[in-house]
C-alpha cells in the first residue's frame, strides 16, 4: 500500500536524507578503499598500464606493423630483446617489434574488457532495474528470457557468428556485449527489489513521477555501488574471454593484435627458443587481470562493509 498525500512531505525529507546519507556512504567507502593497500596498489598499477597503453607507442622505436625483413625467420637469434636494437621486448616471428605490438595488444585487450563491462553496465542495469521495478508478469517474463539466454552456450554461438560473418572487432564487441549483460541484469534486479520499497521510491511514485524517470533518477543511482563492483570483476573475465577467441584465431585480425593473440602466438612457439614472445605479453595480461581482481575486491569490501 502506498503512502497517502499527508505523509509525502515527511518522506520527501527522508528521501533527501537518504541522498545525504548516500553521499557520506561514498565518502566512507572511499576511506575504506584507501586503507586497502592491495587495492590501492592495484589501482596505481592499472593507471600505469593504461598510460602504457595510451602513450607507450611514443617510446617505441618501431611501428607496430613494420617488418624488419632481415629478422624474419631468425627471430630466435636476432630478435632477442635489447635496448641497442630498439626492440625492448624483442621481435615476433614476422620480425615486428614486440614492444609496439604489446602496447597495441594492451590497448585492444583493455578496450575489449571495458566495452564488455560498459555494455553490461548499461544494458544489464537498465534491464534488471526495469524488471525489478515493474515486477509481476513483466518481471517474470523478462527474467525468464534472461534464464533462457543464459543456458545458451554463447561461446559456441559466438564462434559461429565470427566464422559466419567474418572476424572483425565489431563482431567481437557485439558478441562480448551479448553475453556480458545477463548476470548484471540479475544482480541489478535483485538489488532493485530491495530498493523499490524504500521510502524515497514510494514517494516518487506517489507524486506521480514517470516510471522511467524513477528508474533512472532513483533506482539506478542506488544500484551504482554493486554495479561498479561487478563491472570491475567483469573486465578481467572479458579479457580472458577475448584471449580464448584469439587462440581459435577468431579475435582481432592482422596486422592488429591483442594480448590474447600475442600470448597464443607465444604459447605456440614456447619450445622454439623465443621465450620473450610469450613472456612479455603474458606479464601484462596477468598484471591487468590481477589488478582488476584486487580493485574489484577492494571496492566490494569498501561499499559493502558487512562482509568483513
Amino acid at each position, binding site marked *: 500500500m502506498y503512502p497517502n498525500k499527508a505523509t509525502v512531505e515527511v518522506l520527501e525529507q527522508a528521501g533527501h536524507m537518504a541522498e545525504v546519507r548516500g553521499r557520506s556512504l561514498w565518502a566512507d567507502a572511499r576511506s575504506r578503499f584507501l586503507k586497502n593497500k592491495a587495492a590501492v596498489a592495484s589501482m596505481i598499477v592499472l593507471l600505469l598500464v593504461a598510460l602504457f597503453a595510451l602513450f607507450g607507442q611514443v617510446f617505441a622505436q618501431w611501428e607496430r606493423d613494420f617488418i624488419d625483413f632481415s629478422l*624474419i*625467420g631468425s627471430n630466435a637469434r636476432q630478435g632477442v630483446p635489447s635496448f641497442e636494437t630498439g626492440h625492448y621486448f624483442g621481435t615476433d616471428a614476422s620480425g615486428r617489434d614486440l614492444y609496439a605490438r604489446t602496447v597495441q595488444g594492451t590497448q585492444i585487450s583493455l578496450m575489449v574488457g571495458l566495452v564488455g563491462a560498459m555494455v553490461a553496465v548499461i544494458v544489464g542495469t537498465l534491464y534488471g532495474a526495469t524488471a525489478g521495478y515493474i515486477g509481476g508478469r513483466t518481471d517474470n517474463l523478462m527474467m525468464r528470457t534472461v534464464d533462457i539466454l543464459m543456458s545458451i552456450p554463447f561461446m559456441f554461438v559466438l564462434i559461429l557468428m565470427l566464422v559466419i560473418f567474418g572476424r572483425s572487432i565489431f563482431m567481437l564487441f557485439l558478441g562480448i556485449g551479448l553475453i556480458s549483460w545477463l548476470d548484471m541484469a540479475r544482480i541489478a534486479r535483485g538489488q532493485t527489489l530491495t530498493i523499490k520499497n524504500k521510502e524515497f521510491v514510494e514517494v516518487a511514485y506517489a507524486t506521480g513521477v514517470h516510471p522511467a524517470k524513477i528508474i533512472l533518477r532513483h533506482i539506478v543511482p542506488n544500484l551504482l555501488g554493486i554495479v561498479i563492483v561487478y563491472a570491475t570483476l567483469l573486465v578481467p573475465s572479458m579479457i580472458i574471454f577475448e584471449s580464448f577467441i584469439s587462440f581459435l584465431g577468431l579475435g582481432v*585480425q592482422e*596486422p592488429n593484435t591483442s594480448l590474447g593473440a600475442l600470448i597464443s602466438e607465444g604459447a*605456440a*612457439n614456447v*619450445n622454439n627458443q623465443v621465450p620473450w614472445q610469450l613472456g612479455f605479453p603474458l606479464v601484462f595480461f596477468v598484471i591487468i587481470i590481477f589488478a582488476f581482481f584486487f580493485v574489484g575486491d577492494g571496492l566490494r569490501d569498501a561499499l559493502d562493509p558487512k562482509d568483513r
Partner: protein
Amino acid sequence: MTLTRKLMASTATALILTAGTAYAQSETATHPETGEALAATQAFTYRVLDESPSIDPGLVEDVDGSEIVRDLFEGLMNQDALGQLVPGVATGYEVSDDNLVYTFTLRDDARWSNGDPVTAADFEYAWKRAADPATASPYQWYMELMSLENGSDVVSGDTDPSELGVTAVDDTTLEVRLSEPLPYFPQMVTHATTFPVHQATIEEFGDDWTRPENMVSNGAYVLTEWVSQERLVRSRNDQYWDNDNTIIDTVTRLVIPDENVALTRYLAGELDMTDVPAGQFPRLSEEYPDQAVSVPEACSYYFMFNLRDDAPEAFQNADVRQALSLAINRDVIVENVLAGGQEPAYTFTHWATAGFETPDIPMAGMTQDERNAMAQELLGNAGYGPDGEPLTVNLVYNTSEAHAAVAVAVSQMWKQTLGVETSLSNQEWQTFLEARSNGDFEVARGGWCADYNEASTFLDLMQSGSGYNDSKFVNEEVDELLSEAKTAENPQANYDRVEEIIAEETPIIPIYHYASVFMLNDDLKGWPYENFEQNWYSRELYVTADE
C-alpha cells in the same frame, strides 16, 4: 641379391615371393634389397592436421585421405619412388591405335582381405559407383575429367551409370573407352577415386562399410582402428598379393591440430613424421640435419587480381598490376618468411614440373633494387603512388598462419616500396572460396596443386573458360596457345609464350613454388623424396635398426 622391385612383371613376382619369405623367417632381419638391418618393431606413426572427410575410395577428396586409401586399396597402376607408373592390380595395359580404348590386364593373384579374388568387375562397379549421382561423391568430377565415354552424361544424371565407358570383359580384363584421347590417362588411374571397392560389403553395410569391423580392402593394409579426429590404425593385410615384400606392420595416423604441439611430440619420439611449422625449418635443419626434409611439391602460390568490369579501376591497368608484382621481394618470402626450401616464382608453372623448362622472364633476371625502381616508375606513370593518386589494396586470404605471414610481409613490401596501403582480411575457407568465385575481392591469395605432372595442369587455369580462373582473365592468344598445346608434339614453346604473357599482363602474381617441408625419423627409410606429387605407400617404407 638385388631385386628391382619396380619390375613387377608376373615372372618376377615368384622370385620376390621367395626372397620375401626368406626375409620373414630369418631372425635378424635385413632389408631384401639394401641389406640394412631392420628394427624389430616395424611401425610408422605420422601426424595430420585434421580428420579426413572420408576414406571411401569413391568419396575421398583430400590428400591425407588419399594417403590412407593408397595403403588400404590398390588401383590398376601405382607410382614408384620417382612418380613413374608401375603395375598395381593390373600387370599392364594396351592402347588402341586411336588412343581411345585402354585394355588393362589384371593379375590373377590379387585378393580382397576376406579372400575373395579382385576382379575386373570390382573396378567396373567402383567406377560406376563413383560416377553415379546417387553416390554424390565430391570427386564425381574426376570421372568426368578422365574423359570416359558417357562420363559427363552419367555425372549430370542424364544417362544411367551402367552406360559409363568401362567394362569387365572377364575376371582379369578391364576395358576402358574414352570420349577423346588423353595422353596422361594411365597416370590418372593411380588416383584413389579409381580404386576398386568390394561390392558385397558396401551392399551389406551401406555407409558403415568403412568402419574397421566391416571394411574389406585389397591394399597392402587393412583398417584395424579408426577413431575420428584422433587416430587411424592400419595393419598388414595377409591376403595382399605382395604381402611378403611389405615390411612395415602397422601404420598409425594421428590427428594433431596444433603443429607446434605435433613438433614437440615428434621430438619426444611419439611420431615418425610431422610438418615443420613455417619459419622453423632453418633452426630444425641445423639441429636435426638428418631429419628435417624439404622437397619440391607440385603446387604454386600466387596472388590473383580481380579483372572483372566491376572491380576497382586501378587493377584494370596492367602497369599497376606489374608494379605490385615487381615490388614483392620473393627471395625474402622464401628465405625468411617461409624458410623451408621453397623457390621464388616468376612463372605460374612449378619449376620442377616434368618436361617443363622455366622460360626466361625478364623480371627473374633483375635484382630487387632494379625491380623496385621499375615498380615505382610503372606505378608513377600510371598516375598512382606517392606523387599520384593514393592506391589502396584489399588483400584476401584464407585463414592460416603461413598465409597470414606472407600477406603481412607483402603488404609491408608494398607499403615500403610503393607507398601502397594494404588492408588484410582473412576469411574462413568456405567463405573465402565463395568470395573468390563471386569476384568479391580485389586481390586474393591462390594456391594450385598439380593434378598430374605436366605444365598444362597449371596453365589451363589461365584459359578464359576455366572454372578456376577466378581472376576472369581473358586473353585470346593464351586460349589459342593452350588448346594448340593439347595436341602439339612439343608444347614447350606454347607454354613459354603463355608464361611471358602472364608476366606482361600480370593477371596473377606468382610468388613461390611449394616445397613439402617435414621432419622424418632418420631410421625410417624408403621415403619417395623424388615423387613430385609426394604419393607415398607405406609398404615401400621400412625402419632400420639403430646401430
